[in-house]
């Protein structure tokens, strides 16, 4: 006997209770602290902040804990919190040229003013499981001296190339030009580079990685060189209306990547190197490199290149880069679709009935 399904409400409550238990896991193991996540899962925290578009390590750590380590879910939590915040000021553009650099490398020059600074990188590590980390009783030595002082002045590689006009100039927008905000306004095509970069900055790392990679495999190749990658802390300034001059409200860690790309020139532009740009919160090197590849690919039209790959197609990239959007829509397939499915059932049944009718007719007449 069929009874209409009731009790969705209790089922949901029970499921949430079960989820809370699963999140906590084995209660004999000590509960994970926000401080631990924040200080030992820093790259996860950075990714959640970058794609969550909110710089707050504590909240990102909380989101990771609540999401049981599912970073896309954590990004979603942070976004849903961000959307409730009111905006009280626009910051001045950050100056990555005066960054407190922790890492800075260039693949285009062997040495350059300021030097190559490896910093805390996985590069050149051998990916061997370090079983000594299994021992959690080990007492960590306190960090020693800071090591050598880094030079204050670290000019950007692109500004070195700038001097002989070998690379295209970047022209800042006019002071009073309002920057669009993709979190407040719907996308409008064709877009400008500012909205594209905003979209890429919060875009899914995996998606951008695949799209960037595709340009390296022939789907819109643009011969990139890693001009410079730098990571470190920059100051954030705002100009309060009643003061009229900039004040520093804090520091944020960012990673920046400037790609230098070959460009053979077109009917409108002389041969010159062009740029692809990537920037994200925290230590997000893979992300910003992929972002810079895609940024450059998306400039195809502007530079008069033929669009051959998805990475060069702005509607394709910008509509599919956001993991909160895509994760939601892919997973909405879990929601009931009985009504639509009933419509399809009815139609397919009718089509089948007609089909078998036709078949019989064909058999009778012996025709085709």
């Amino acid at each position, binding site marked *: *006997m*069929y009874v*209409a*399904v*009731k*009790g*969705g*409400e209790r*089922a*949901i409550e029970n499921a949430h209770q079960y989820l809370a238990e699963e999140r906590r896991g084995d209660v004999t193991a000590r509960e994970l602290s926000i401080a631990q996540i924040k200080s030992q899962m820093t790259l996860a925290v950075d990714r959640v902040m970058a794609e969550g578009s909110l710089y707050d390590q504590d909240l990102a750590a909380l989101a990771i804990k609540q999401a049981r380590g599912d970073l896309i879910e954590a990004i*979603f939590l942070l*976004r*849903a919190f*961000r*959307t*409730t915040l*009111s905006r009280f000021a626009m910051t001045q553009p950050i100056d990555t040229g005066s960054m407190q650099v922790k890492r800075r490398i260039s693949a285009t020059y062997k040495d350059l003013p300021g030097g190559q600074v490896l910093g805390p990188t996985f590069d050149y590590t051998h990916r061997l499981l370090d079983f000594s980390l299994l021992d959690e009783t080990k007492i960590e030595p306190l960090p020693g001296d800071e090591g050598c002082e880094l030079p204050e002045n670290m000019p950007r590689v692109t500004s070195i190339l700038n001097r002989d006009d070998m690379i295209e100039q970047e022209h800042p927008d006019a002071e009073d030009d309002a920057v669009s905000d993709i*979190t*407040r*306004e*719907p*996308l*409008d*095509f*064709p877009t400008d580079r500012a909205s594209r970069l905003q979209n890429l900055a919060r875009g899914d790392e995996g998606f951008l990685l695949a799209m960037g990679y595709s340009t390296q495999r022939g789907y819109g190749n643009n011969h990139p060189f890693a001009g410079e990658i730098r990571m470190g802390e920059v100051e954030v300034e705002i100009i309060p209306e009643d003061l009229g001059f900039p004040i520093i409200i804090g520091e944020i860690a960012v990673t920046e990547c400037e790609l230098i790309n070959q460009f053979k020139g077109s009917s409108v532009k002389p041969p010159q190197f062009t740029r692809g740009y990537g920037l994200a919160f925290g230590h997000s090197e893979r992300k910003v490199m992929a972002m810079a590849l895609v940024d450059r690919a998306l400039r195809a039209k502007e530079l008069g290149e033929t669009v051959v790959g998805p990475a060069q197609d702005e*509607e394709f990239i910008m*509509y599919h880069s956001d993991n*909160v*959007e895509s*994760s*939601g*829509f*892919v*997973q*909405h397939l879990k*929601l*009931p*679709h*009985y*009504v*639509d499915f*009933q*419509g*399809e*059932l*009815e*139609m397919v049944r*009718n*089509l089948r009935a*007609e089909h078998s009718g036709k078949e019989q007719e064909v058999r009778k007449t012996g025709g085709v």
Partner: protein
Amino acid sequence: MNDVQQGYNFAYIDEQTKRMIRRAIIKAIAIPGYQVPFGSREMPLPYGWGTGGIQVTASVIGKNDILKVIDQGADDTTNAVSIRRFFARTTGVKTTEKTSEASLIQTRHRIPEQRLNEKQIMIYQVPIPEPLRWLEAREKQTRKMHALAEYGLMHVKLYEDISRFGRIATSYDYPVLVNDRYLMAPSPIPKFDNPKMDNMPSLQLFGAGREKRIYAIPPYTKVTSLDFEDHPFEIQQWEENCALCSSEKSYLDEVVMNDEGERMFVCSDTDYCEKRRRQGHIGPMGTALAAE
């Protein structure tokens, strides 16, 4: 359930954002069937699960409203429960399962069987607002096609259906023309519900959160489902009646009862079905419900 969530604005969204959404809604009402881009916000529910409808509801809901939320016609499907709880928590407004009692009805995939009135607002959750999307993937192109009212492509598609299948092979999200001007996606409601949109006394609002579009059909507006003179628009029909309330006019869901594939058909609109049973209409597998 009655305790209202602390620390968030009434209906979750801040007032400035609500104003922005209301402006988009007013524009949408002024140009029936036209998709108005709006600054869709992140909601605490996932995209594709009704964020557009939620934002529209949050922008129009007031303290005295009575809210009904349905999914597949039913009030007790999990997502409808979840959205109804969300508004109960963030607004404290009264919720209901009764179509006649509601001032706002947020829906996914159905229009209630009962005729709606001028005091009610229907709010549809929309996954893909662009009716031409499957024929043309580019937004730049489709906007141009709407601007020029160039809908030949859709007619060709429907014609191809007829030449291939002998009928128009679209059973839900069946395209409509609003006010003789804009081609519009009615959202994935079954085509069975399309005629209800025509000349409906209540305001119909459509929200697509992920795609950042709002559109509307003002009360008493002409809505026609596309068809051809020799292939007129038709709605779904069943040989069976509802097994619970014996209705012969409602949209039926098919329920598989056992491993042998035995089936029964029941009203997809649960409130309608219950109401009928209270009025004494009992189907072969239904039980009488006490009158109110």
